[in-house]
């Protein structure tokens, strides 16, 4: 398994080295990235480690968006409502001061206790949540605020009203809007990156993942139910589709992994926040000097290059 990937990456490396078409700087960045990925492969996680990531990503004490906001932001003002029909509590948006600059933030938010979980619909957004996020993206663009998005969603809500209010279209349009923004966008998956519900706010210049988060096209249970015809085979499904951060990095889906405290983010939220803050700041520092047009062009080119085919 690892050797297959290794070969593929080595092949890509070789092909890139022989290529004169790309701009010099971007090419060396790409080479560096591939080299890093190769180094990671030696330490590819086992099936057990993958499942541990699934469990930690869903841990009930794992810090959520607002836990990080509280630790990383000054002068935070939360904004509410999609200006159309509702305020979706599963999506938190606002502006705040982060490392000396005003930033706009979009984050998924689960609840701590049963009352809050119900209020926040277990973190599962309605189309109203995505429209609220889009409203904030427009605000960020208007005022030149960098956009941060923290992803932690089991999946977009699968309900009757969500469908009637246009769940699919809202997810599509939220991505489309992100692809048009001229401000820097940094996304970090901080728990569950659940399918369409996650990608709706993850079309970013830099996509990061915390070490114990997962990024999936379908939940392990859903995949097991369809392919193994038994949701209890979730562990097998997770091992097969590899939603952990290391594999996502290997596949070029994310740009880097944000370390967590030993034992997971929930064991030391302050330290987890410090590490996350550092990674977000570094990414922003890197992106801010880049002109808007180039940001947008490179962002689109990056996503348009994703996929493996012959």
């Amino acid at each position, binding site marked *: 398994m690892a050797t297959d990937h290794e070969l593929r990456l080595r092949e890509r490396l070789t092909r890139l080295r022989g290529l004169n078409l790309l701009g010099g700087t971007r090419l060396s960045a790409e080479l560096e990235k591939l080299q890093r990925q190769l180094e990671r492969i030696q330490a590819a996680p086992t099936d057990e480690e993958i499942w541990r990531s699934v469990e930690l990503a869903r841990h009930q004490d794992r810090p959520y968006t607002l836990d990080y906001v509280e630790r990383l932001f000054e002068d935070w003002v939360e904004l509410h409502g999609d200006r159309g029909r509702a305020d979706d509590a599963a999506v938190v948006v606002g502006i705040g001061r982060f490392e000396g600059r005003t930033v706009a933030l979009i984050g998924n938010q689960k609840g701590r206790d049963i009352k809050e979980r119900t209020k926040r619909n277990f973190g599962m957004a309605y189309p109203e949540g995505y429209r609220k996020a889009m409203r904030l993206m427009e605000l960020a663009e208007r005022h030149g605020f960098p956009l941060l998005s923290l992803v932690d969603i089991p999946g977009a809500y699968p309900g009757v009203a969500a469908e009637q209010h246009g769940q699919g*279209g809202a997810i599509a349009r939220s991505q489309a809007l992100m692809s048009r923004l001229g401000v820097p966008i940094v996304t970090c998956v901080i728990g569950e990156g659940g399918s*369409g519900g996650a990608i709706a706010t993850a*079309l970013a210049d830099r996509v990061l993942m915390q070490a114990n988060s997962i990024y999936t096209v379908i939940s392990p249970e859903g995949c097991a139910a369809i392919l193994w015809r038994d949701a209890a085979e979730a562990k097998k499904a997770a091992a097969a589709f590899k939603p952990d951060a290391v594999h996502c990095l290997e596949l070029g889906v994310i740009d880097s992994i944000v370390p967590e405290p030993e034992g997971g983010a929930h064991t030391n939220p302050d330290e987890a926040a410090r590490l996350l803050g550092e990674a977000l700041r570094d990414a922003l520092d890197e992106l801010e000097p880049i002109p808007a047009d180039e940001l947008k062009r490179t962002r689109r080119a990056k996503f348009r290059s994703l996929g*493996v085919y012959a």
Partner: protein
Amino acid sequence: MSSRIDVSIEHRNVPEPPGKKHPNTCPACDSHYRDDELEAALWVCPHCGHHFTMRARTRIASLADEGSFSEEAADLRSEDPLDFFDLRPYTERLAEAEMKTGLGEAMVIGQAAIDGNGCELAVMDFSFMGGSMGSVVGEKFSRACDSAAQRGVPLVSITASGGARMQEGILSLMQLPKTVCAVEDLHDAGQPMISVMTHPTTAGVLASFASLGDVIVAEPGALLAFTGPRVVQQTTREKLPEDFGLAEQNLRFGHIDAIVPRPELRAYVTRLLRLFGPNGD
């Protein structure tokens, strides 16, 4: 909740349930037809108007001027980046789908003319692994956008898909932003996209390029839902409205522009191509 997820989506080696209808028997009115009868009727039941699933090549023949279609990227094939193995290897499923459908993947793209109007076609085929979108479908759609932009013609997309192809894991999810960015680049190049949603257009395809058409139309009775009725029912225990997720409900709630019966589709698309075309002539 997890233990109750319906597992009937993909059965294999399971005896056909008694009363399962022949593919040429209309599920709505039980009329039965020969292939050539359905072919002549564009796979629409002549008795009740039910729209049967239409294969990609048949669809192209029904829309494009004779001899005008020139396929692109026909040789693209999926790889197996995860060495995915559930009950069978992904590579085996792919080979079987190719044998069964005669197609290399779940999407066919190419240049075409419709009633003399040049355009690019991107047509999905539900028979190939449920029209699921993996790296190749994403790449083909992306190339269709580029081809349309380069030639300065509109893109006509016809979707039929169960969503992202989970055998490609997270890379299949990445086809959502990939195709979204492709449409945005097409729009920046000044070209429109006409999205025709056919049964079913769900999940990852609905939540990406299919929903980004300048004009979105659907075939009658098509299921257009991010989450299908079975999963909604099982997850939420809600009572579902009768037309839940169907084209008719989507029209009522403002998500699509029109429902166009298949026999009228060619004329409808032609009119749009003329309106979007140079000088609106």
